[in-house]
């Protein structure tokens, strides 16, 4: 399945894009997505361990399964206020 991933802040700048698409096997988890991303975008490898993953606008655990059409986003350390 194709999964769209939103990128923000330092991750967006490191990737050079605000949104990317990944090909993942059906039933892939958040952890699988991170592994695939690290392989496809080695430039992000330094920042990825610090980021949380949001699925449908809620922070997800490593084992959370991703479904086609889910809104996936990488959340680097936040700094509002």
């Amino acid at each position: 399945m194709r999964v769209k991933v939103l990128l923000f802040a330092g991750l967006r700048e490191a990737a050079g894009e605000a949104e990317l698409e990944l090909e993942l096997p059906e039933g892939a988890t958040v952890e699988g997505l991170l592994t695939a991303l690290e392989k496809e975008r080695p430039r992000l490898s330094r920042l990825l361990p610090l980021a949380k993953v949001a699925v449908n606008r809620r922070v997800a655990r490593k084992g959370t399964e991703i479904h086609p059409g889910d809104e996936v986003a990488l959340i680097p350390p936040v700094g509002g206020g």
Partner: protein
Amino acid sequence: MVKITEEPIDLEEVASALSSPELGAILTFIGTVRGIEDGERISYLEYEAYEEMAKEELLAICREIKARWPTVQRVAFVHRIGRVGVGEAAVVIGVSAPHREETFPALAYAVDRLKETVPIWKKQVGEKGARWKPAK
């Protein structure tokens, strides 16, 4: 009231969203951009948000506050995104209640929670260059 905006924050608008004849205590926090950070002269901050999620998180914090301090009837979060100059308000947070007692802890909690989980990022641009700054 939860709002993420590229425009300068209108304090009057926030105060009026928090006011009502039965609410005798309105407390607001204005977070402004410091011109000096660890000895470095700052030019401006650049904020970015994952807007839809940030709004949902802020609404969840509003609900937490009302559950924890039941006299607090209204909560406002207005956060600016884009470039914010030194001295300008980056965020305005407010709470209101019939009486003041619960508004002080509720407001302090609101400010702390904003910095924990809400997907908003700030890039500090100063004489030493630009860098993304996580909340302390």
